[in-house]
């Protein structure tokens, strides 16, 4: 479980995160949504320790991140998997080398054990016969799957994904969403996803947090998204023409029914 208490971050005098409190539970897929510039990526980078917040605590299973020693932080990071927006694969290494990298770095397994594990996770993300390919030879969806494979190869307790669907077609997005949710359930991982994709919200958002100008505006489940009267969330959700039309149709149906 990850708890966030009163998280504040500013850049050059501009407050990007303003006192955010949140709890992310094990085995659940939580989505942090919001428009571009709402502070989602800064929030995620603070959780990962890539950005130092000015104020606030991030607590991993009862341990406050900022009070951990360097070794404790390094040990914690072995339990973290991260899927970056642009996949962040090592472009001069093959798929196999990318996925094997954390195993080489942190385990003393033999080559046979490592390759067995690599093949297992690549199989798990439905990526076969791509071991010897370089990232540049793969499609965007395949690169995301390699990134997920690399993120889960060490059996992490926490999985972070920064806009895993950006640049992907709707069908591939759904495949990636389902994959992340399946893995979250299967390994009881605490998964946090940054997204502004409403399909992801509806498909896999067991818990949703809306950020607006660095403030937590709303928190709830995907079932509650369409029942809320929170203006910021309504604005965000119905900025999509598709959802706007669905809502208009629904309202028309409700009116004709009454």
């Amino acid at each position, binding site marked *: 479980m990850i708890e966030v208490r009163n998280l504040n971050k500013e850049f050059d005098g501009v407050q990007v995160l303003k006192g955010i409190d949140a709890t992310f539970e094990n085995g659940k897929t939580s989505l942090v949504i919001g428009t571009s510039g709402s502070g989602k990526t800064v929030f995620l980078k603070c959780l*990962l*320790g890539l950005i130092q917040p000015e104020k606030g605590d991030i607590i991993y299973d009862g341990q406050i991140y900022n009070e951990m020693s360097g070794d404790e932080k390094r040990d914690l990071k072995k339990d*973290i998997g991260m899927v*970056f927006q642009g996949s962040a694969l090592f472009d001069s290494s093959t798929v196999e080398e990318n996925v094997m990298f954390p195993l080489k770095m942190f385990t003393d397994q033999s080559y046979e054990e490592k390759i067995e594990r690599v093949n297992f996770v690549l199989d798990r993300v439905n990526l076969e016969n791509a071991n010897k390919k370089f990232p540049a030879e793969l499609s965007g969806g395949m690169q995301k799957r390699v990134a997920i494979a690399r993120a889960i190869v060490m059996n992490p307790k926490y999985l*972070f994904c920064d806009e895993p669907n950006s640049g992907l077609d709707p069908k591939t997005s759904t495949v990636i969403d389902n994959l992340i949710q399946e893995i979250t359930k299967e390994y009881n991982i605490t998964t946090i996803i940054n997204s502004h994709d409403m399909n992801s919200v509806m498909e896999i958002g067991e818990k949703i947090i809306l950020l607006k100008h660095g403030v937590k505006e709303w928190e709830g489940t995907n079932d509650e998204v369409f029942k809320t009267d929170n203006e910021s969330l309504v604005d965000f959700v119905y900025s999509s023409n598709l959802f706007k039309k669905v809502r208009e149709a629904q309202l028309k149906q409700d009116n004709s029914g009454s």
Partner: protein
Amino acid sequence: MLKEVFKRPQKGSIFRESIFKEIEDLGINSIGIVAFISFFVGGVVVIQTALNLDNPITPKYLIGYASRESLILEFSPTLISIILAGKVGSYITSSIGTMRVTEQIDALEVMGINSLNYLVLPKIIANVFFYPFVIIISIWLGIFGGWVAGNLTGLVSSADYIMGIRSEFEPFHLVYSMIKTSVFAFVIATIPAYQGFYVKGGAIEVGNASTRAVVWTSIVIIVLNYFLTQMLLGK
């Protein structure tokens, strides 16, 4: 930055592997251009020296002697280092800079890897320990190029040239040359690594950082060359 770079590597076997890879990328892959330039510049040095020492009472062996000294003292350690600052420096900045802007360095950090240590220390070690060999090759090929040029042009006989090469050899000049090379090798690895590691933005910023790295590395080499020469050879 250097405090993080010189921390103990997280895994010895990966570190050794990285050093050999960097020796290949930064050192062995530079030998071709170094050999080509050294051979021809050695030839040019001999031709120019011979044309300037045209007094009949000046012994011809001085052409070999002067060529050897200029190659050992200045051409190979300094000029080749500036050439390598361009070739290797831009490679280091652009490779690390690209990793920065494509979040590959963030990926390393998230895994709990000290990215400065993982990316930069092998480059420093490969440079500092392998470049002296590259410079020795450069000196040897420069002298050989001079011998070929002297024979082809007839400006100096083979016997005179070899006599000059062998006369009044001062071993400390070679030590001085190797000390300079090692210092320049450290500069060639660190300044471009710094420029690449802290780059912000995209492809254009990586390009700008590469240019900045080459310019600053060359300037620092030239300035250090002056001070090292004063310190090591000055009376």
